[in-house]
């Protein structure tokens, strides 16, 4: 029960790698899109928002399928990537990152958006009068103040990708050591009668990863709170 097979260990590592990749890959777009959604009004905003939200609503399997169509060898972007950069995403762990990231992005964007919309604009005004350009104001005032939301968003993306199954398996496949993440391994185990304990062992591994990431995020949030000067006990 405790000893993990090499396959399982590799699935855990891969999951971690993919989840961290997702966390890294979603941060910048989530911050940009979250800010855009929170602070700008433009025509078709709601369409953009729908687009961002789509991977949340569409079953992940379909997302994977659509990714395959777009990023596959014969897909519009996939072809171009392969020809120009010799990058192939299908069946690679980068592909798993892409799939998970797309599925997780709406969660991260929502979180950032909420936090940015709750940042006190009067502080941004103060920064502007001190000579901060809008960009600098964003980097130095808005972002740090929205930090709990950004961190929360990254955490959500990380966690969601630890649990992502449908899109990854469809787009990136289930190749041991390169795309077989924890959920895929769990799924495989569940398909064999009597291997429930293997599945549960892997579930526990997932939970441990989740716990660790929460712990880390808690530490970072606390530090941020401290920096934000929010009294924790009053």
């Amino acid at each position: 029960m405790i000893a993990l097979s090499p396959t399982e260990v590799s699935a855990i590592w891969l999951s971690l790698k993919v989840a961290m990749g997702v966390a890294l890959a979603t941060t910048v777009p989530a911050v940009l899109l979250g800010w855009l959604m929170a602070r700008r009004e433009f025509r078709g905003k709601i369409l953009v928002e729908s687009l961002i939200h789509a991977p949340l609503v569409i079953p992940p399997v379909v997302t994977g399928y659509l990714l395959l169509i777009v990023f596959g060898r014969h897909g519009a972007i996939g072809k171009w990537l392969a020809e120009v950069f010799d990058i192939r995403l299908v069946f690679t762990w980068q592909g798993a990152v892409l799939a998970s990231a797309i599925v997780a992005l709406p969660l991260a964007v929502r979180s950032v958006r909420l936090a940015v919309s709750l940042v006190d604009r009067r502080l941004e005004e103060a920064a502007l009068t001190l000579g901060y350009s809008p960009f600098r104001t964003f980097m130095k005032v808005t972002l740090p103040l929205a930090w709990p939301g950004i961190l929360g968003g990254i955490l959500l993306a990380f966690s969601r990708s630890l649990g992502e199954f449908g899109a990854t398996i469809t787009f990136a496949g289930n190749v041991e050591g390169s795309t077989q993440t924890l959920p895929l391994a769990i799924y495989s185990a569940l398909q064999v009668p009597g291997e429930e304990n293997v599945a549960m062992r892997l579930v526990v591994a997932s939970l441990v990863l989740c716990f660790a990431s929460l712990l880390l995020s808690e530490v970072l949030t606390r530090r941020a709170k401290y920096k934000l000067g929010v009294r924790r006990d009053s």
Partner: protein
Amino acid sequence: DFTVFAAASTTDVLKELAASHKEQGGEPVRFNFASSGALARQIDAGAPADLFVSANAKWMDWLETQSACRKETRFDLAANSLVMVAPPGSSLAFDGTISGRVAVGDFKSVPAGMYAKEALEHLGWLETWRPNLVPTSSVRTALLYVQRGEVAAGIVYATDAQAAGHLEVVGTFPAEAHSPIVYPVAAISGNKAALQFLDFLKTAKAKAILKKHGFADPEKTNHKDSKSTKKSGTKPSCTSCLSGERK
């Protein structure tokens, strides 16, 4: 009405069977299509199933050990065979040589993968092919990869190949190369209407529908000992209807 839990891969054929059954005065069927494993567990957890159509024997066996199905009503509804498909115009030969990736169900968890493993082992191709294999989470995904041209070939059921169309069937694995690919069915409850449907499934009419969808008759294919390890020439009996369906 009554409820049939059926493996997702049998979706279209079972729907047609149900329609035909209804035409003949049978009660309407409610379906629950999912993976065999999910269904078996649901049944075990007390889901209100009346019949269970499994995509492999293992899950039915498991239900039997849980005494969650009526053993005496079990029979094999249909059989299937394993084929290698490739995108149209492929120059692949079915002779043990391989180039490019081959999508195949996960050896451990996907029934089609298990059969494929047996067959490849039996043919002695496994070790050469291993680096080229891409395990997938379901046979559908394997098929999808072939359709999208992500892989050079895939090992799927003959029925899938037929239904998908537009694909080149490079070869059919001989039936004796793997354990029989059968779809066991058994009653779960004592529902009369369900038992009627079970009986209907044994009729010639039902067999015709199954055949139309590319399934083989389990009795006829059940000869594990016959040894026909010949190459691409050994097209299964249903290949003709495959080509017939292509239009």
